[in-house]
């Protein structure tokens, strides 16, 4: 038996895999004051369902996989360690400048952001390495010791070190590390070239700063988690989900907690890849996870989950860049709680403001009086006020009506239903633009991709989004409400190693590059022999971070061969680069040479035999099949078939208008669309064409 737990903002999702590969889905409330309690609560819900004690349930399991927003929450709430930043003389303001840039050029109400580590705790270290790896000025060790003594006096709890060019000559940075161990014993520190050996000092410095600042709390969290699981009766292995869509041992991630930043959302595309292939035989997908306040979009391109190095904590240019590769996830402020409002020119907007979980939509009856997407869904009949969350919460339809009439219908001179439908249309369009944004950056035509809807609110407008994008198929997996936890169950142990080594296709230094690839492969092999020991299957892949000369943004190109033995191997890389460049940007320059800035090796170890994303069959205690009145633009009120998600037979086809409901989600099948149950349990929708 295995567990995968994803701690999100509102819910802690648990997927249990039984010994017959059947999945079981459970939810408990997240407990922000002590998130591990929410984890144990979710396990207790499962134990009750299996009619076992918690200890007996835990005793049956050999693997516990955990995704958590604990690290990102610590940063957002300012609960990280008091951290100092050491950098090269003359460059104290690396974290202040970031890489410049700004959004909303006419908006002067937003002041310049504070650096991740205050300037008062940023120190310059005399000494300088140059771009050719030579030492221009030796390291002034005496000064370093003086600084360290000052840090001791200031009771600094962690240290981040980023010196210029440490990626090609780490001597100075390594020596600073030794001096920290000697003069600040026990204080955790991060060396930028060890953590993230990539070009561009801000990104490396920011990685190191974030990583160091998380070390004290995250090691405590991991100790606490494993301790309390053991106490409760678990004696298996605890793995943690990383930002890169893989898993690491809890004790290892405590050493590099930056990998926790996107833990959770990174798993949605792992699920998505599985369902796109299983349900539709496709290797390209857009995965959209709808929560209460955010809409997270991720991708699968030809079987791969694309990464980005440009991951921001907070808004672009106003927050901090992690500088670390992460699964590319685009988040916008849109979800069930997004508020609808009309501006003074008479135009309707939805979001980015959200009613959140508290006070929540008007229909929650918890004091919210602003109309939200959830309220519009209720007014249109998409949601059943008596069967929300399986009937665990009842909704106040009158409150929704009042809010929409007051804030939308009256100012826009629309009927209640047209106003509610307009709210859904605008929310849909916002979501579509988020998908267009990330797909254009990653070079995917959304029409060629399967759209996969996850999160409890996904089903409301996924058909409409699919129509707008021209998608052939929209999939709502049965485990969609816990898409990230399900992905965690399917993911692999993963590590990635990077080296900076500049090479050009003309005058290619094959020996130099092969030397780097040797080092990277050795790192992968020791991972396989370490954490990967006993795994079922291991794969190593190599990538070049390449660009045309003078470009400043690199793209990632997989290497066809493990070493460069002949000119043909170099040409193969060049041709692949031209191809990927054209895929992503619609143009290439086949007569131009290619530059490679960095080399990456990625190693994966598979732990799970066979794959399944299907919920185990269970008896239905309640059934809501029948019809109800639902309003659709252009159709008015129509009788929609209402069908229980779990009760649909494999291969059963439903023609819209229809509503498919489960305790976790509601799927709206618009008129003109059809839905079919797949073997995996998913509902697969042909959205049909957008009305002209």
């Amino acid at each position, binding site marked *: 038996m295995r567990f995968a737990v994803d701690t999100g903002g509102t819910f802690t999702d648990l997927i249990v895999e039984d010994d017959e590969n059947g999945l079981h889905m459970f939810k408990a409330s997240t407990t922000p004051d002590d998130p591990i309690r929410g984890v144990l609560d979710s396990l207790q819900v499962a134990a009750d369902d299996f009619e076992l004690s918690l200890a007996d349930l835990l005793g049956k399991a050999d693997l516990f996989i955990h995704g958590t927003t604990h690290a990102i929450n610590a940063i957002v709430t300012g609960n990280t360690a008091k951290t100092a930043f050491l950098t090269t*003389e*003359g*460059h104290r*303001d690396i974290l*202040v*400048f*970031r*890489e*410049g840039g*700004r*959004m*909303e*050029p*006419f*908006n*002067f*109400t*937003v*002041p*310049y952001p504070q650096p991740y580590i*205050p*300037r*008062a705790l940023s120190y310059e270290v005399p000494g*300088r390495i*140059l*771009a*050719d790896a030579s030492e221009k000025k030796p390291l002034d060790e005496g000064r370093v010791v003086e600084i360290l003594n000052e840090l001791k006096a200031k009771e600094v709890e962690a240290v981040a070190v980023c010196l*210029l060019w440490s990626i090609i000559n780490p001597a100075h940075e390594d020596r600073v590390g030794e001096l920290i161990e000697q003069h600040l014993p026990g204080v955790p520190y991060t060396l930028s070239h060890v953590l993230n050996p990539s*070009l*561009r*000092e*801000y990104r490396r410095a920011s990685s190191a700063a974030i990583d160091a600042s998380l070390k004290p709390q995250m090691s405590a969290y991991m100790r606490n988690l494993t301790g309390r699981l053991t106490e409760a009766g678990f004696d298996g292995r605890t793995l943690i989900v990383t930002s890169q869509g893989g898993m690491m041992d809890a004790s290892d991630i405590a050493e590099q907690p930056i990998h926790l930043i996107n833990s959770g959302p990174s798993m949605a595309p792992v699920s998505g890849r599985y369902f796109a292939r299983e349900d539709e035989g496709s290797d390209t997908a857009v995965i959209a996870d709808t929560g209460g306040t955010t809409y997270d979009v991720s991708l699968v391109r030809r079987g791969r989950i694309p990464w980005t190095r440009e991951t921001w904590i907070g808004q672009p240019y106003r927050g901090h860049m992690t500088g670390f590769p992460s699964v590319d996830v685009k988040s916008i402020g849109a979800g069930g709680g997004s508020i609808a409002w009309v*501006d*003074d*020119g008479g*135009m*309707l907007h939805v979001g980015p403001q959200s009613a959140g979980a508290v006070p929540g939509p008007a229909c929650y009856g918890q004091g919210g009086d602003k109309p939200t997407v959830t309220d519009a869904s209720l007014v249109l009949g998409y949601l059943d006020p008596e069967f929300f969350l399986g009937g665990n919460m009842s909704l106040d339809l009158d409150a929704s009506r009042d809010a929409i009439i007051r804030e939308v219908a009256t100012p*826009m001179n*629309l009927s209640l239903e047209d106003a509610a439908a307009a709210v859904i*249309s*605008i929310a849909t*369009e*916002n979501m579509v*633009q988020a998908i*267009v*944004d990330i797909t*254009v*950056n990653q070079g995917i035509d959304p029409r060629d991709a399967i759209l996969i809807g996850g999160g409890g609110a996904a089903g409301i407008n996924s058909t409409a989004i699919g129509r707008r994008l021209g998608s052939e198929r929209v999939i709502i997996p049965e485990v969609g409400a816990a898409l990230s936890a399900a992905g965690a169950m399917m993911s692999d142990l993963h590590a990635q190693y990077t080296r900076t080594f500049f090479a050009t296709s003309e005058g290619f230094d094959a020996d130099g590059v092969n030397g780097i690839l040797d080092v990277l492969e050795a790192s992968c092999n020791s991972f396989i022999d370490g954490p990967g020991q006993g795994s079922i299957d291991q794969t190593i892949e190599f990538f070049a971070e390449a660009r*045309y*000369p*003078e*470009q*400043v943004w690199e793209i990632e190109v997989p290497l066809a061969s493990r070493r460069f033995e002949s000119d043909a191997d170099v040409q193969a890389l060049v041709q692949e680069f031209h191809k990927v*460049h054209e895929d992503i*940007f*619609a*143009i290439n*320059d086949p007569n131009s040479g290619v530059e490679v800035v960095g080399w990456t090796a990625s190693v994966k170890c598979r732990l799970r035999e066979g794959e399944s994303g299907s919920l185990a069959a269970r008896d239905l205690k309640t059934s809501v099949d029948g019809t109800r009145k639902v309003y659709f633009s252009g159709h008015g009120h129509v009788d929609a078939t209402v069908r229980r998600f779990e009760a649909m037979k494999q291969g059963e086809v439903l023609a819209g208008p229809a509503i498919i409901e489960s305790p976790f989600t509601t799927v709206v099948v618009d008129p003109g669309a059809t839905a079919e149950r797949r073997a995996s349990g998913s509902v697969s929708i042909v959205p049909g064409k*957008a009305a*002209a």
Partner: protein
Amino acid sequence: MAKTKIDGVQLALLSNRLEGISSKMGNTLMRTGRSGVLNIARDFSCCILTGDDKLVAVAEALPIHVLSGPDIMAKTMKEYHPDLKRGDAFLHNSPYHGCSHAADHTILIPVIDDDGVHRYTVAAKAHQADIGNSIPTTYHGTARDVYEEGALIFPAVKVQENYEYNMDIVRMCQMRIRVPEQWWGDFLAMMGAARIGEREILALGKEVGWDTLENFNEQWFDYSAERMVGAIKQLPAGTATRTSTHDAIPGTPEDGITIKSIVTIDPDAGKVTVDLRDNIDAQPCGLNLSEACARTSAMVGVFNSIDHSVPKNAGSFGRIEVLLREGSVCGIPKHPTSCSVATTNVADRVSNPTQAAMAEIADGFGLAECGAIIPPSTGVVSGINPDTGEPFVNQVFLGLSGGAGAPDADAWQTICHVGNGGLCYQDSIELDELRQPLFVKARGFSPDTEGAGRFCGSRAVYTEFGPRVGNLDVAYVSDGGINGPKGVRGGLGGACADQFRITRNGDREELANCDVVNLVAGELIGSQSCGGGGYGNPMDREPEMVAHDVREDYVSVERAASVYGVVVDDMGNLDVAATEKMRAGL
């Protein structure tokens, strides 16, 4: 088809669609461009105009590029090529026909529907690394005229017909432009972006119908005009005159170029007028404005001063009247006047007094002055790389600040200059040292250089760099050494720019403010950028904000007391009682 009223829902949906298309064009251009000025300074823009040449949608782009100009360029394209066909594309960089300056190569593509009707024009514009000027910089500040400037000028020249390149023109460019591969890469990137825009608009027209789109255009302009009127009605009526002076360089009057901006706010009419007619004639140098930059720089000053959420398109533009004079330094230039540096230096001297005048009329609106550029830290570096024997030319963006204090917030430090709006990236030291044989010794904020105010302007940035090996040429046109950024409503000015050579034995030699400086190995150039002006009286600044600046080493204890009347101890703790006493006594 009769005009039907589009509802607020469809208005939102279609404006979102068109803006989505322009963003897609912009993303494509940024990710594929080759030169640093394009993909680091984000010195590019993409926009969509209606068939009758009104700007309807624009991707987030530096302000000086797009507000006005694309409309004139599209008109020129139609005038010179009345028989537009699908598959045509035009290269345009003529400052006499609507382009900002010659360095901004622009691809214009008419979007022609299946019936041959010209529905929209898409434009992709990008500052080039080189345009074949007589010296290796795209900012030729001292050029007497366009002939000395030396750029090839393209007044809407057809470069594609039926989607095929006219290679004659491509080859001409390659013979004249330094780093021809880089130019060709950027040219491809612009063409790719514009073609994506064309493709998407054609698909949109098929989906929703061209008549619907025509209806939408008009109602979108009406809506935007209404929003603009609403924003202007929040301001009091009044007129204010402010001046701002560009430092002297060769070819300007001895005291530099003073720009006078007369701003009148008429809330009843929902209109702002910026009168630039009372200014000197065009000068025998490269600082003169193109018509596009003269209009846009005035509009930037207005839009910086009001509710930022007003959409920027022909509808809102119609509520701003910019009065220009033909033959003026900031008016409509006559060929062969050089406008080589039109997007930055004198343009900033138009935007800054305009937004400052807005602030003087209305407390809580407007903006202080942003810092001037282009200091050596953002100059064009060139030379021969001794490691490879290859020549290099690139503009670097090593360190700039220049943000202005605002009514409710401190400056955005890295605003670059007022016409850039802060979009410019700051270079990675490592990337610059890898791209060319550079050694960047230092880059950081200088203490006690901020424009003090209730809300402060930026601090100055000090940068020191030189060749790692070999020789290095650095070209720059650094304004703001004498006339620094001024504050408004009692706010103080920010620090002035400065530049000097640091010789091998460490001596400092002052450098001229407009020069091409040759550095030999071991020499460095020191460059201080301007700060930005403050908004409101520094004595009204929140004392805890001053204490924070002291703790962060930005402001000295002495300056906290003398300029802000705030008493802070050496540990950075605020002394509330002493501060109240000092402020009461001052």
